[in-house]
């Protein structure tokens, strides 16, 4: 306590310098919190999006992700409905969604182009939540009483074919038997996924229409949606044991965008974090060095009076700890204000490369992150101070007392 009191008094010795060091430490902590908070928000958003897109666990034919199909649905799942009914009985499962992937030509009679199709269950949009923007018309719904084949078109594809809601088109594809088949569809809605390459090719139909086009009752995959995101890994292992004859894939194995962004951000923000910490470290090193230099004669007097080297060093380390602690506290408050401010006053980020939609800038503030960044900064402060003062406190007493 006595050393803490003396260290506290010493912080007031050169207030401007102490405040400058403290603020630099605070800005460093704010920087670490902001960058890691933004990264966490991004990871969380992308993880959520990826889980919503594919489901927490994906069931396929065991060869589906490893072999190229010779014909549509070659590696499809039979008896998908029975499987879904079994899965849904598990209390952890919120819902299941079957999907049929297909491709072919889409034509308005005058113009034809390639499409990438997804046959989906009507409750897709309820289960997934908002995953694409509806530009015109309606999405599929569970209680739809509409008859006839309908499709949602990507915005660029609709523009390319010069069609709007209610217009008729024809989808052509190859059936599982190798025959050419076609169905007429009506444009039900126009959507934007945010990815231009997808918007120029996307066609979504009801799963029954896709199966009719491909002449099969198989599905490409079943996405299993859980009530709790945190149970995804455990449930994946459970299904692996439960269905050894099926391909069981965890969501992150197919979340290529999520993985790429995470790897990229980890490197970028990791380097930024190191730079910030280096700045904080050098600032504290500089402050401690100057402090030792200015107090050399005093250190000599303290040592002459019988103060041990370790006690003098401890004094400087406590001072550094206080700077680290106070700087961290100010930094955490600043980063909290930044996080809150971004929620109150929405700031839009420009669309990422390859996408058309921007997203709101948010910075997560987490207790774990706050504790980790504070601990790192305090340890850094102590190390920097120890490094700067170790030699100073060991100067011979006579030399220290003569120091001008």
């Amino acid at each position, binding site marked *: 306590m*006595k050393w803490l009191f*003396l260290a506290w*008094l*010493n912080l*007031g*010795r050169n207030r401007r310098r102490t405040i400058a060091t403290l603020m630099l430490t605070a800005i460093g902590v704010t920087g670490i919190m902001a960058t890691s908070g933004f990264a966490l928000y991004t990871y969380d958003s992308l993880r959520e999006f990826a889980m919503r897109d594919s489901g927490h666990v994906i069931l396929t034919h065991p060869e589906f992700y490893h072999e190229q199909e010779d014909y549509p649905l070659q590696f499809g799942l039979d008896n998908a409905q029975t499987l879904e009914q079994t899965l849904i009985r598990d209390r952890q499962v919120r819902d299941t969604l079957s999907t049929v992937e297909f491709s072919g030509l889409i034509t308005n009679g005058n113009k034809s182009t390639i499409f990438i199709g997804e046959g989906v269950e009507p409750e897709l949009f309820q289960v997934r939540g908002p995953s694409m923007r509806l530009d015109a018309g309606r999405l599929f719904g569970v209680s739809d009483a509409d008859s006839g084949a309908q499709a949602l078109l990507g915005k660029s594809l609709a523009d390319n074919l010069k069609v709007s809601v209610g217009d008729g088109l024809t989808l052509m594809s190859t059936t599982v038997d190798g025959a050419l088949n076609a169905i007429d569809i009506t444009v039900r809605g126009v959507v934007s996924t945010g990815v231009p390459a997808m918007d120029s090719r996307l066609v979504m139909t009801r799963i029954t229409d896709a199966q009719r086009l491909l002449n099969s009752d198989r599905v490409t995959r079943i996405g299993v949606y859980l009530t709790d995101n945190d149970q995804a890994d455990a449930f994946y292992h459970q299904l692996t044991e439960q269905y050894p004859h099926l391909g069981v894939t965890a969501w992150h194995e197919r979340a290529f965008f999520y993985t790429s962004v995470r790897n990229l951000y980890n490197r970028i923000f990791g380097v930024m974090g190191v730079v910030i910490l280096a700045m904080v470290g050098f600032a504290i090193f500089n402050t401690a060095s100057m402090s030792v230099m200015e107090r050399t*004669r*005093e250190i*000599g*007097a*303290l*040592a*002459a*009076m*019988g*103060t*041990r*080297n370790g*006690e003098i060093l401890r004094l400087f380390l406590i001072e550094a700890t206080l700077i680290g602690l106070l700087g961290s506290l100010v930094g955490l408050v600043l980063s909290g204000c930044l996080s809150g401010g971004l929620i109150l006053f929405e700031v839009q980020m420009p669309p990422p490369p390859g996408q058309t939609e921007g997203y709101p800038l948010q910075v997560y503030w987490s207790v774990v992150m706050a504790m980790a960044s504070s601990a790192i900064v305090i340890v850094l402060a102590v190390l920097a101070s120890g490094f700067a003062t170790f030699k100073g406190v060991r100067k*011979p*007493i*006579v030399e220290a*007392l003569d120091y001008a």
Partner: protein
Amino acid sequence: MSLMTVENVTKSYRVGGAEQTVLAGIDLSLQAGEFVGLVGPSGCGKTTLLNICGLIDQPDSGQLSWHGQSLKGESGAALTELRRRTFGFVFQQFNLIPVMSARDNISYPLMLLGLSRKAQNERVESLANAVGIGSLLDKRPAHLSGGQRQRVAIARALAKRPELIIADEPTASLDEETALTVVDLLRSLSREFNTTVLVATHDARLSRWCDRLIRLHQGHLQVDPGHVELFGEATV
């Protein structure tokens, strides 16, 4: 038995490539409770001898004994412990801790000894009254005059009731009147607490306070002849 014995101590410095001997075989014995003045011209090695006696510098050769026990070969940590318990220092430049009040400066050595806050306060107040700064205890050194600061320094040196006080030119930064008051104070307190004081000075006026005055000249100690006349025969 002597409190401290210095035997055949030498110390040289290398100045501009040449070896300069400042202490050439010094023998000195300090008795408990005596007030010893060390005089000599500037640069003669008074501070060096004081530093060696204060265990904050090492001689090139010779040895020191404390209560008859040789200190040769003692570790730095052991000497630090000895200074912590039994040595007091009064510096020419006071060397008070500027961020601490006079009270905290005086109680610092007591804090090192682990005395309770209550015991510290009692002793600090008693000493502060004795040195005449009882009303200034809450002031920081920057708000005290030179004389007041040196009184704080004397109180700090005496606080732990040391056996030996090393005072290096304690009056050099003070005006004449204050200097005499401070030395008088140091002398009377050393008598009261039976503390040995070794004080270096080039101020001849201080000689009348000393039990013994020794002169350092060309690396050797001599009994000050003037002082012998005043106080009778003395030994080094």
